[in-house]
């Protein structure tokens, strides 16, 4: 029995008879990829681009960690180091994490999950990809024009004064914003208008709910970033005097504008990870989600409150005490729905049938790492404690536990989860699990140490440092090498599977709509419009328990 029924009535199937090629071979030639409006091909192109930039940003991270092995100069001077950490941060945020789950996995899977032929605006989807490539080209251009040394946050007035290629990078981020907005609009309309018959809001996979909340934030917050970066470009070029105190501007205003986007952007980055984890935990433990509605609604609640907490980046910036207190209060308010999600995921495991597949190991790894990321946020949300910890390695460790331990781990888990759907190939499970464990260990060695020497007072963005932080930095650097080994092993394992012949058997037995279509899917996704009659996690094992004939 399946959770869905495919409607084979002649009216739906008219003209659809016969064999259809899968999306990878349905059209041939390079130009059939460059101009494709197929959401699946665009998802794959995004995936390739995200992985490529993850390698670029990752190598920059390794260079940064290597420089920090010893207190004084190891491999590069201070100016090169400042450009390197900026490159790492900007590439990882704008080119990797923001598009990672929504634009690559989401693009591929969303219409399949909805039982739709494509997204609502396929050409806008194509435009979104090429706008992303254009924005990325601006980022890469800065590498040959001397690099950018402002940090990914572009704080004024340093970003106004620096002679580095900041203008080019700002234009790049400005352009990338439009790619993000296009994808957001597309997903919102698709989710509202293109659900298959019977696919009511309470039957949507939680991944779809997460993409919905993300798309809302992308559409509402990204324009503010565009305006802010646009003003900064004008400040740099024609000195309009809005951020530069020399011309009567206010440098702290920039921080408000910047975080008004970039805090929601934190949720743009993590909420898709939440959705991903809901899929991984249910499918690989053969259980319905514990608390579907609280999880679905809390994504939207987090998206909403996430707009009101930007000032917690500014507790020591000279923001007023009243504003700081309100932002601290709201920050704790956003922690509650997040905690509820984690509790619900753990409770989902109860009485499940847990399979230690590669995606599941990533999901469990996520629960461990994200819990630490979330709990350490409580230190930073508390005003007096934040005064000591802000702008130290404690903050670096905290957001890596959330952004990498959360989003990137969920992303890698998702790639493994749907790899067979994308390619029709199965990777080696043993190597997959080993890589996931190496990543988990390497990650903790790298970043947990940073909580310790961060609390001891080690500031961020330091090229050299005091001797008392040496041991911590050394351990962290060795950890980063282990982490890199695990990540490359995972990548090689996936790529090696592409050499297998034919279509391998499907292993996960999911019941949401993306599992109902052929693998790899045909160009138009479904031979006929599916009709949904049950929830997204109504596995045979759950139905067996309901009817009492499981054994």
């Amino acid at each position: 029995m399946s959770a869905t029924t495919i409607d084979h009535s002649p009216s739906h199937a008219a003209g659809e008879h016969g064999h259809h090629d899968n999306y990878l071979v349905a059209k041939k030639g390079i130009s059939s990829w460059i101009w494709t409006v197929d959401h699946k091909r665009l998802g794959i192109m995004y995936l390739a681009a995200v992985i490529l930039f993850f390698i670029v940003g990752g190598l920059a991270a390794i260079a940064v960690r290597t420089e920090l092995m010893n207190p004084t100069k190891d491999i590069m001077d201070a100016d090169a180091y400042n450009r390197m950490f900026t490159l790492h941060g900007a590439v990882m945020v704008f080119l990797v994490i923001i598009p990672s789950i929504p634009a690559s996995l989401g693009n591929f899977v969303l219409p399949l999950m909805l039982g739709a032929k494509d997204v609502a605006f396929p050409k806008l989807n194509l435009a979104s990809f090429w706008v992303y490539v254009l924005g990325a080209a601006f980022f890469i251009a800065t590498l040959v024009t001397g690099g950018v040394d402002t940090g990914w946050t572009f704080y004024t007035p340093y970003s106004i004064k620096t002679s580095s290629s900041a203008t080019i990078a700002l234009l790049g981020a400005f352009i990338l914003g439009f790619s993000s907005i296009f994808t957001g609009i597309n997903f919102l309309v698709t989710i509202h208008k293109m659900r298959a018959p019977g696919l009511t809001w309470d039957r949507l996979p939680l991944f779809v709910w997460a993409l919905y909340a993300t798309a809302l934030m992308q559409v509402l917050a990204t324009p503010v970033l565009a305006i802010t970066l646009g003003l900064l470009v004008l400040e740099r070029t024609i000195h309009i005097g809005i951020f530069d105190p020399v011309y009567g501007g206010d440098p702290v205003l920039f921080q408000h504008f910047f975080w008004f986007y970039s805090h929601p952007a934190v949720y743009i980055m993590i909420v898709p990870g939440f959705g991903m984890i809901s899929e991984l935990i249910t499918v690989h433990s053969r259980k319905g989600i514990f608390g579907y509605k609280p999880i679905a609604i809390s994504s939207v609640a987090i998206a909403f409150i996430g707009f009101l907490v930007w000032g917690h980046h500014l507790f020591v910036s000279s923001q007023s005490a009243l504003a700081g207190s309100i932002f601290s209060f709201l920050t704790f308010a956003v922690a509650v729905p997040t905690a509820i999600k984690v509790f619900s995921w753990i409770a989902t495991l109860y009485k499940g049938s847990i399979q230690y597949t590669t995606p599941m190991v990533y999901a469990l790894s996520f629960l461990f790492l994200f819990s630490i990321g979330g709990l350490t946020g409580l230190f930073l949300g508390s005003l007096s404690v934040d005064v000591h910890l802000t702008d130290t390695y404690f903050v670096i460790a905290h957001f890596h536990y959330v952004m990498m331990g959360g989003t990137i781990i969920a992303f890698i888990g998702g790639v493994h989860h749907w790899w067979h759907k994308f390619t029709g190939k199965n990777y080696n499970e043993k190597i997959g699990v080993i890589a996931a464990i190496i990543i988990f260990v390497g990650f903790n060695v790298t970043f947990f140490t940073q909580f310790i020497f961060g609390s001891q007072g080690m500031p961020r963005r330091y090229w050299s440092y005091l001797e008392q932080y040496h041991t911590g930095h050394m351990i962290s650097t060795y950890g980063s090498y282990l982490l890199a080994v695990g990540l490359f092993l995972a990548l090689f394992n996936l790529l090696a599977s592409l050499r297998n012949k034919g279509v391998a058997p499907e292993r996960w037995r999911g019941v949401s709509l993306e599992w109902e279509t052929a693998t790899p899917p045909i160009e138009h996704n479904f031979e006929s419009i599916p009709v949904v009659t049950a929830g997204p996690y109504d596995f045979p094992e759950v139905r067996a328990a309901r009817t009492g004939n499981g054994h």
Partner: protein
Amino acid sequence: MKTPLLADGSAATFWLPEAASTFAADHDYLYYLIFWISTFFFVVMMGAMAYFMVKYRRRKQGEATSDIHGNTKLEIAWSVLPTLILGVFFVLGFRGFIDTLTPPANTLNINVTAQQWAWSFTYPNGGNDSILVVPVGKPVKLTMSSVDVLHSFFVPAFRAKRDVVPGRYTVLWFQSDKLGEYDVLCTEYCGTSHSLMMSKVKVVSQEEYDAHLKGLTGCQDGQSLAECGGVAFKRNGCNSCHSVDGSKLVGPSLKGVYGTEQPIVGGPAVIADEQYIRESVMNPMAKIVAGYPAAMPAYAGRINEEQMGALVEYIRSIK
């Protein structure tokens, strides 16, 4: 006011550095409260996860699981309990924060000027220094401003931090009851030598403080003019960008520079004589030595003629 720390302060712990201000006890209490409550919940959560991972591991494919959709009582409990605990964190953090923002009336006032990449402290008698010297057991209020970009004044041992912003004053106050020497770090990224923008705060007895203050203005008896200039060179942070041993920092090294010809951006070369050295200190943008960034702030109005003369003599003496 909160109970002050014991006069001898407290030593560094595994997580936190040495504590040497009156705020530190409150801060460290809340830090460790959050730490232990978080650790407790983390162990409970991961314990439950590990237990489920073992107990409910798959034994055979297709085995029945369970048709559970939620549990209202449990869900209310795990929504309300964290809310209450977070409320406590908020209140304690808020109270500690307000204390750090509310200086008492009888503070000793010191001005702080931040620039790329040095700290300068101006004392009530007009004296300047590149390190902060304060009397023990006295509340000190720093009124801070920046001449260029954002900086942030951070003393880990005091659990005190405040951004220093161009175009406005920010205020930070503290009281240390513990004699000693503590690190001052810049914690807002400010360019090339951000990580070298460090200083010290020395907590000394009232007598030592008074003596230090006297020594800051003008040259001392028995000091040569060049020695006096050497002291001014360090106090004004010149050494953070200019070496005296020939090594290249952000600005040109001053070793043997006196009397030599210097290439100038967009103009004829000049001889580094007394007049040029004075101009380069007071108005450095007038002539930029080729090959170096136009990064130096102007010192006009910040050092007096006596110090200027001593500096020139000092630079003449570096051979």
